[in-house]
Every structure is written in structure tokens, then in C-alpha cells.
């Protein structure tokens, strides 16, 4: 203990500089006197004492080196030396820091975005043991459970220590003095404990609250608690009004709470299902099941252990569909990220490539600097600096540069992240949660230190060669080879980036160019989500929308007014199983589900408002709206599938078993109804009549107008407000909606394009740097050549040839690698093969042109050198 204190004291205070000198002087004097006493003369005695002592200076230094805190002084000295060097060479310093900042900034920003998707633990206890369990069938894309099977599974499964369910989230209204439209999720009583979530205030539901007609209770999210109740702890046990009913708040959920299937949830309610009724029901309520694996069990083992209960469910399913039902057990993260994973990896790969290019550039710059300083290093080494010392000096410089780069990079990352979030479509999973945090900062510093070590070591390993030659020559050939290698690597990597971006851009263009099959110009969609607690009956709903439709017709400039329960550009619509559709006079179709069929509930003018052509038969008529009969229009795809070449008009069809029969009156052209990139689904349109049996759902109005968007929206709102001033009205142009469908590919393309351009820019700068360096290095040679009769053209070819070789080599390597890697991107591409020749040709050409330009600038400069100047150049 005392020892440590002494060390600390000496480290802080040190000794007086003259102290050692005094001590040594005393020693010499004492020795001299001893020699005099032995009979020498004074001068001889002193001489002998000095001889015996040996090197005075050496001893003094050795005494100094014993000091514990010595290394701190050395570090500070190295640091000061490095800073002086940077000040003398500002262009180099700025270039290095800027390159690093771009590399590190982009990496950090993208890492912030993908971190949550790929790496960050979910906000549940021991999330590695949580899985999503269920059936997969064509009807619902993600795994689900049915009330008829769920309880059987929960009670008889062997692989899980807890098994729970939720029944999804619905919109609900907070009907208090400060009303709001919210999202309410319904969960089983053991849902929170299974996921390992503990309310930060209050308690979880009790078993008796999760029964039909049990006490009405709710847990509220932290967000709602903060926005509506000012974080008041008295919220527990208070009653709030949800959809006009009083509900008692029993607790507040943690800040980072999220539903495992990522539904928005401001309020969590007990699902209060009637268990006995569900067990008897077929198929029963759609539910989503989550479970916690017993320790040590793998997902595959759990899946095997679930086979008996899965077979039970399979027996419940209608016999023709059984082949299309499968069991699925997967981690919650896989369920959440199924569609963004690949995009996230591609993005991360792209920034990693940018960082790599940036590091190569910085390395190249550092090598160039080291080459210029070879003479200085040689001199210092001759003056006694050890190899270790020079290595440490170089690493100190690299470290300082990385640190500056990392700081600038963090600022840039913050800016870039804001830009990403602004550009990003709302639909991308969890992007809104992305933020720079401690982990990411640590990651950045780690990356930049790795950069520092990588590029610090290259030049350090080359210093110093033979002192005598280095002191005279201007840089060695070895480092140039290293830099050439780096440039070839950079070109190859940025080729890969650029071809990835080109493929995405082509794919995006294909998406933009394809028609939706509807006219979007001058068309508005008006969505009015009626508050459920006030518009409770189909009658009220129908009356409101019929009035709204009439009101729209009175607006000047409105040409057509149609209604539908969903729009192709909205992305969602009704769906049913193909083989459930029956045709009069035909046996019901056979095996399997036959896939899914889209359907909509529309008014007659829907087709003319969106300019969907009726290709056979006729459209719905106004008179049919008040008819007792049911009418149907098929899409071409469905008509061909059901009737082949025969005329479907006049046929009678029953879409839903035991439902009403519909008369087919016409066939409409196909419309893109599975998003922009999905394959078209067969579709049919039911006429929505002015009869309450057709008004179980809200409607969207579609207006074909000659108005511009700014003028129309306020008029439309005013008209609706005259009917009911309290309902929310969302007015959008259809082109806005369609463009939103393309948001994701647009975002991916823009991001990858941005990184590809960054990468290419840096690679080209790297290329320019090397060629310029080589040209300067060969100035004397150029002078000799010109003196011996080389023309300026010869010189241009000499220098440019160097660049062309690098571009060719790097380009070929990059092309090979990108052809090999492009197939991984297949699922991100639309109507473009991963080996699309046009994209690769384009990338190759662009690179060749830009690269040539970067080569020609220094080559031309070399060509213009005066031979006399060149010969004297040193």
C-alpha cells in the first residue's frame, strides 16, 4: 500500500532535475579525495575518479528511466510531436480526418439503424428462449393459432415452460375530456409473465380479470402515461373511458415495452375469451401464440415435441386444406424481422465496404506521408531512436487521427441518422427506434481504433530501412506496390457497391414504370374512420357515407365519386380462399385451398373514377344499388381461372359457402393488388348496395376531379364537417399513396446509391493520389526520357498506362466478386436478374470513365513538365 502511494507521489511530483547531478558530483568528489588519500596528485585523482565512474550522462539517464511515470511524459511528447507534424501538413490531416469521418459516420449511422433489427436483445427477459409458435397456412402469412386448437396446445405441450397468446391489436378510442384514437392490444393473463415483463407501476392482470364479463381492467403504455396523464403515479386504480366504457387502470408498462409481433399498443387489455366456447369452436378465434422454451431445449427439439398437438389441429382443418398447413416455431426476432433482414444485411455490408475503402485511403495517405518522411526517420534513427520508438510514434499519430476522425464521424452520424429517419418510410420495422447510444459510440471507437492500428502499422513496418540509402533516396519502391495493391482493392470493393446500387436502381425504375392498372392523376382518396362508439350500427354508418357521397358530388370540379372498402394503393383488402368459391351447376373445386383471392366492396362509379376498364359485360348500374339481388364483377385473372375461355357474364357464383349467390355482370381489367412488387392476385368486386347488410365496414371515397391537391383538401373537409364536425378526415391523392408503396425500395436504393457514390469517390481519390505520387516520383526519369527524345505523348502513355492497369485489375476483380455476390440480393430485386448485363455494363463504363479522368489529370501534369526542370528535380 505504502509502495503504491510512494509511486503515485513520484509519478506526480518527480524529482528536481539537478538532484541527480548533485548526487553524482558528490560521488566524484568523494572518489577524488579517496584517491588523494591513496597518494595521487589532485589532478590525477580526479581523472582516475572520472575514468572509474564511466559515462556520467548514461548513469544520469538510467536514473531518470527508473522513474515510474516516465511513460506519461513520453506519450505527451509523442502527442505534441504528432500535432506539430499535422500543423505543418494541414492538407494531409484534413484529408485523413474527412475520409475517416465519412467512413465512421456512415458506419455508425447505419449500425444504429440495423442494430435493433439484427443484434440488439429484445426487451424481454432471456429473449433467447422466447419463440413464436403456430400454424402457417395461405390465409395468414405469419404463423397463427386458432381458438379451437390453442388451449389443447397450451395444456398438452411438453417443450415449453410457459405458453401464452394474444389476439392482436385494434383501434380503440380514449373517450375522455382529451379524446384520442389509440391502439388496444388484447393478451392472455399469463402474457406478461411469460415474456418476463413486469409493470413499472401497479400489477399484471389477475386470472379472474381474463374471463368473459370479468372486471374491466387495462394496463397502459409508458407513452400514454406520459402524454395523457403527466406521469402521475395516481393513475393506478383510476378509471378511464375506452370506447365509451369505464375501464380501471391496474398498471403501467415499462418504457421499452413492445408487443412481440410489433403491433402498436397504447393500451393492453385482457383478451377475456370464453375458454370453453373456444375449445368447442371450429375454427375459433385467430390468436398468436408465444412460448418460453425449457432451458437447454432447441427450437428443432421443441418443434418435434409439438407434433402430437399439431396433428390434433391438422385433424380439425378441412381435409382438402391439410397439405397446406404447416407447423412453425421460430424466434421472436425472426418473426419480427422476416422481411427486413436481408435489406439490413445488405446495408450493413455496404457501409462496411465504405469503411474498408476509407481505411484503405487513409492507409495510402499515411504511407505516402511515411515515404516523404523516410529521410527524417532515417536521421532520427541514426540519432538513436529505436525501432520501437519510431513504431510508437507512428501509432500515436494514427491513434490521434482516428480519434479526431471518430469525433467528426459521430457528429456526421447524428446528422446522417436524422436524414435517414426523415427519408425513411414509416412502414420500415422499428426504424423509428433507431438512435445513437452508448453501445454504438463504443462500436465507433472500436472501429476507428481498428482503423488506426491497421493503417498505422503499414507505414511503421517499413520504417526505417537501411539508413544510408533511405537518407539519400526519395522513397522506396515497396510502399508504392503496397499502395497500388490498396487502390486495386478499393476499386474492386467500390465496383461491388456500385453494381449493387445499379441493380437496385434498375429494379426501382421497373417498379416506378409499371402501371398500377388504375388512373391516379387527379384522383383523391378520402378516408373517414368513424368513431366506433358513436357510429355503432350499420344503419348509422350507411347513412353517414351516403350523405358524404352526395356532399362530394356537390363540390365543383368533382367528376366522379366512387366508394370502396379498400383501395389497391392502400395495400390492404379482403381476402378469401379460391376453392371456397362455388359456381352454380358445377361441383365444388378439389384439392387444397387454390391460393387466395382478393375482394372489394364497391359502388358502381368506383370503376370509372379509377378508370379501370370493363373488358367484358358491363359495370354495376345505379339502379342495382337499390336491388335485393347481389351482383359481382370479376377481374380478368379470376375470370380466366374460373371460366377459361367461356363467357362468365350471366353465371351465378357463391363466394362464401352458405352465403348469398351473386350474378356476374362483367369482367374488369386487372389491377395491381399485391403491392408494387407482389404477383397480382385474382380479384372480384361485390356491389355495395344501399342496404344495411352491406355496411358492416367503413368506406373510402374515391374522387375523380379536375382540382389540384391544395385546393381540394380544404373543400372536402368542409363538406364532411357539415355532416359531422367531429369525425377525422384523411385526404390524400392517389399518387401519394402509390408513391408510398414504393417508399421502401426507394429508401433502399437511395441509401445504397449514396454509399456506392461515397465509395467510388474515395476509391477515385485514392487512384488519383497514387498516380500523382508515381508521376512526381518519376519526374527525374521523365526528364531523362524527354532529353533522350520521348515525345509528350509517350510520357502521357507511360503515366496513364499505370492508372489503366490498376483500373483494369481492380475492375475485373470487382466485377467477378459482384457477379458472385449479386444473387444474395435476388429477393430485393424486381424484374431484374442478379446478373443483369445492362447494370454491369453501366457500372463498368462509369468506373472506366471516372477512373480515366482521375488518371489523366496527373498524367497530363507530368507530360507538361519542362525537361530541364525535370532533370534538376530532386
Amino acid at each position: 500500500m505504502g509502495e503504491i502511494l510512494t509511486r503515485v507521489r513520484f509519478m506526480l511530483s518527480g524529482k528536481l532535475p539537478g538532484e541527480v547531478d548533485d548526487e553524482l558530483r558528490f560521488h566524484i568528489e568523494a572518489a577524488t579525495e579517496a584517491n588523494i588519500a591513496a597518494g595521487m596528485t589532485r589532478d590525477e585523482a580526479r581523472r582516475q575518479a572520472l575514468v572509474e565512474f564511466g559515462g556520467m550522462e548514461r548513469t544520469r539517464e538510467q536514473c531518470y528511466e527508473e522513474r515510474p511515470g516516465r511513460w506519461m511524459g513520453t506519450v505527451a511528447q509523442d502527442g505534441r510531436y504528432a500535432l506539430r507534424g499535422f500543423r505543418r501538413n494541414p492538407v494531409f490531416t484534413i484529408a485523413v480526418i474527412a475520409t475517416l469521418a465519412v467512413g465512421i459516420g456512415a458506419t455508425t449511422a447505419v449500425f444504429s439503424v440495423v442494430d435493433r433489427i439484427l443484434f440488439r436483445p429484445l426487451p424481454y427477459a432471456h429473449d433467447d428462449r422466447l419463440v413464436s409458435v403456430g400454424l402457417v397456412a395461405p390465409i395468414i402469412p405469419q404463423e397463427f393459432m386458432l381458438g379451437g386448437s390453442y388451449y389443447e396446445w397450451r395444456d398438452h405441450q411438453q417443450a415449453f415452460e410457459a405458453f401464452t397468446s394474444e389476439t392482436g391489436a385494434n383501434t380503440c378510442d380514449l373517450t375522455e375530456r382529451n379524446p384520442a384514437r389509440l391502439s388496444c392490444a388484447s393478451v392472455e393473463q399469463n402474457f406478461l409473465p411469460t415474456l418476463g415483463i413486469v409493470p413499472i407501476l401497479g400489477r399484471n392482470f389477475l386470472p379472474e380479470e381474463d374471463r368473459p364479463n370479468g372486471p374491466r381492467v387495462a394496463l397502459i403504455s409508458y407513452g400514454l402515461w406520459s402524454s395523457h396523464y403527466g406521469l402521475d403515479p395516481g393513475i393506478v386504480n383510476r378509471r378511464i373511458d375506452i370506447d365509451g366504457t369505464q375501464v380501471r387502470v391496474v398498471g403501467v408498462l415499462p418504457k421499452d415495452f413492445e408487443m412481440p409481433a410489433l403491433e402498436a399498443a397504447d393500451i393492453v387489455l385482457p383478451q377475456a375469451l370464453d375458454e370453453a366456447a373456444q375449445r368447442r369452436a371450429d375454427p375459433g378465434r385467430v390468436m398468436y401464440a408465444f412460448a418460453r422454451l425449457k432451458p437447454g431445449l432447441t427450437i428443432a427439439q421443441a418443434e418435434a415435441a409439438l407434433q402430437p398437438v399439431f396433428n390434433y389441429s391438422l385433424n380439425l382443418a378441412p381435409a382438402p386444406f391439410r397439405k397446406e398447413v404447416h407447423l412453425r416455431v421460430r424466434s421472436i426476432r425472426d418473426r419480427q424481422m422476416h422481411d427486413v433482414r436481408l435489406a439490413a444485411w445488405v446495408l450493413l455490408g455496404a457501409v462496411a465496404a465504405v469503411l474498408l475503402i476509407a481505411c484503405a485511403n487513409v492507409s495510402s495517405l499515411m504511407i505516402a506521408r511515411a515515404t516523404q518522411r523516410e529521410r527524417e526517420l532515417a536521421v532520427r534513427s541514426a540519432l538513436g531512436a529505436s525501432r520501437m520508438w519510431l513504431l510508437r510514434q507512428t501509432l500515436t499519430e494514427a491513434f490521434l487521427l482516428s480519434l479526431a476522425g471518430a469525433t467528426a464521424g459521430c457528429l456526421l452520424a447524428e446528422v446522417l441518422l436524422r436524414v435517414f429517419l426523415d427519408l425513411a418510410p414509416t412502414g420500415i420495422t422499428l426504424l423509428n427506434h433507431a438512435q445513437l447510444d452508448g453501445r454504438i459510440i463504443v462500436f465507433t471507437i472500436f472501429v476507428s481504433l481498428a482503423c488506426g492500428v491497421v493503417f498505422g502499422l503499414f507505414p511503421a513496418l517499413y520504417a526505417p530501412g537501411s539508413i544510408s540509402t533511405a537518407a539519400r533516396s526519395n522513397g522506396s519502391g515497396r510502399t508504392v506496390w503496397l499502395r497500388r495493391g490498396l487502390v486495386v482493392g478499393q476499386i474492386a470493393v467500390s465496383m461491388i457497391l456500385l453494381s449493387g446500387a445499379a441493380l437496385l436502381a434498375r429494379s426501382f425504375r421497373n417498379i416506378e414504370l409499371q402501371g398500377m392498372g388504375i388512373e391516379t392523376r387527379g384522383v383523391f382518396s378520402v378516408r373517414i374512420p368513424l368513431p366506433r362508439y358513436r357510429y355503432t350500427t350499420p344503419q348509422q354508418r350507411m347513412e353517414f357515407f351516403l350523405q358524404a357521397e352526395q356532399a362530394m358530388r356537390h363540390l365543383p370540379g368533382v367528376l366522379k365519386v366512387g366508394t370502396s372498402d379498400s383501395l389497391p394503393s392502400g395495400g390492404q383488402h379482403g381476402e378469401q380462399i379460391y376453392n371456397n368459391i362455388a359456381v352454380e351447376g358445377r361441383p365444388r373445386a378439389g384439392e387444397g385451398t387454390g391460393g387466395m383471392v382478393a375482394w372489394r366492396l364497391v359502388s358502381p362509379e368506383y370503376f370509372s373514377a379509377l378508370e379501370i376498364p370493363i373488358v367484358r359485360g358491363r359495370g354495376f348500374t345505379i339502379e342495382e344499388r337499390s336491388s335485393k339481388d347481389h351482383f359481382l364483377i370479376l377481374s380478368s385473372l379470376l375470370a380466366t381461372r374460373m371460366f377459361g375461355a367461356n363467357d362468365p357474364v350471366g353465371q351465378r357464383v357463391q363466394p362464401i359457402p352458405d352465403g348469398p349467390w351473386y350474378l356476374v355482370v362483367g369482367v374488369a381489367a386487372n389491377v395491381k393488388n399485391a403491392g408494387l412488387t407482389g404477383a397480382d392476385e385474382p380479384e372480384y368486386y361485390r356491389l355495395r348496395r344501399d342496404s344495411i347488410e352491406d355496411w358492416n365496414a367503413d368506406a373510402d371515397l374515391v374522387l375523380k376531379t379536375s382540382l389540384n391537391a391544395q385546393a381540394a383538401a380544404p373543400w372536402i373537409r368542409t363538406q364532411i364537417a357539415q355532416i359531422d364536425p367531429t369525425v377525422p378526415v384523411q385526404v390524400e391523392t392517389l399518387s401519394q399513396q402509390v408513391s408510398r408503396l414504393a417508399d421502401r425500395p426507394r429508401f433502399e436504393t437511395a441509401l445504397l446509391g449514396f454509399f456506392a457514390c461515397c465509395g467510388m469517390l474515395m476509391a477515385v481519390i485514392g487512384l488519383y493520389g497514387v498516380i500523382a505520387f508515381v508521376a512526381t516520383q518519376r519526374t527525374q526519369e521523365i526528364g531523362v526520357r524527354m532529353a533522350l527524345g520521348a515525345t509528350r505523348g509517350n510520357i502521357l502513355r507511360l503515366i496513364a498506362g499505370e492508372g489503366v492497369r490498376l483500373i483494369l485489375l481492380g475492375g475485373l476483380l470487382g466485377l467477378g466478386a459482384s457477379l458472385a455476390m449479386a444473387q444474395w440480393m435476388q429477393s430485393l430485386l424486381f424484374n431484374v436478374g442478379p446478373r443483369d448485363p445492362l447494370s454491369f455494363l453501366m457500372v463498368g463504363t462509369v468506373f472506366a470513365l471516372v477512373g480515366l479522368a482521375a488518371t489523366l489529370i496527373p498524367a497530363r501534369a507530368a507530360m507538361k513538365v519542362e525537361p530541364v526542370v525535370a532533370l534538376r528535380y530532386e
Partner: protein
Amino acid sequence: MAETTDLLQGTLDLLILQTLVAGPMHGWGVAQRIQQVSKDVLQIGQGSLYPALHRLEYKGWIASDWGNSENNRRAKYYRLTATGKKQLEAELATWERLSAAIALVLGNSAEVQP
């Protein structure tokens, strides 16, 4: 001059500490005393003496004060600290064990040789 023996690594520290048991002493005194006591067999080079003194001081095993020498010159006197005393005891024990072990080995080989 008598033949000198190379000092074992770390032995110098032990010698200095042992020498200082007699009382505070300056560097010159330490060197002279080791030489005298060892009957001129051990001659401490100044190049290693002073760094060793400084090292021991930094470790806190010895402490120093400036004082006046016998002939009234300013000299730096080193003395043993409490930590140094403990350290000396520990090192002496180690040294005795070591030298006993070496003696055993050498004794055995002496018996075998003839």
C-alpha cells in the same frame, strides 16, 4: 585489483538494503562499504549503483535526505524504511533458501567427482 564476480540479478538490491541496516549512508559510502565488507571481491559499478538506489527509492524501500558529509559536503543520505526492512527480511529468507539449495547441489557434485 582483485578479481570481481558478476552479481546475480537482483542481488544488488539485497546488498544495498543489507548495507543500509547499519544506518543512513550516501551512495559513495554504500559502494565503499560493500567493497570493504566483501574484501574487495564485490565492486559495485557506479553505472548500476545509482539507478538501483533510485529504483529502491521509487519503490519506497529506502528514503533519502540531504545532509552534510564527514568533510562538510552536501550529500544525499539513504536510509531503510519500514517497508524496506520487511522486504529485506523476505529477500534474506529467499536468499538463504537459495544458497542452501545451491550448496547442496555443489556439495553433492563434489562428492561424486573423485
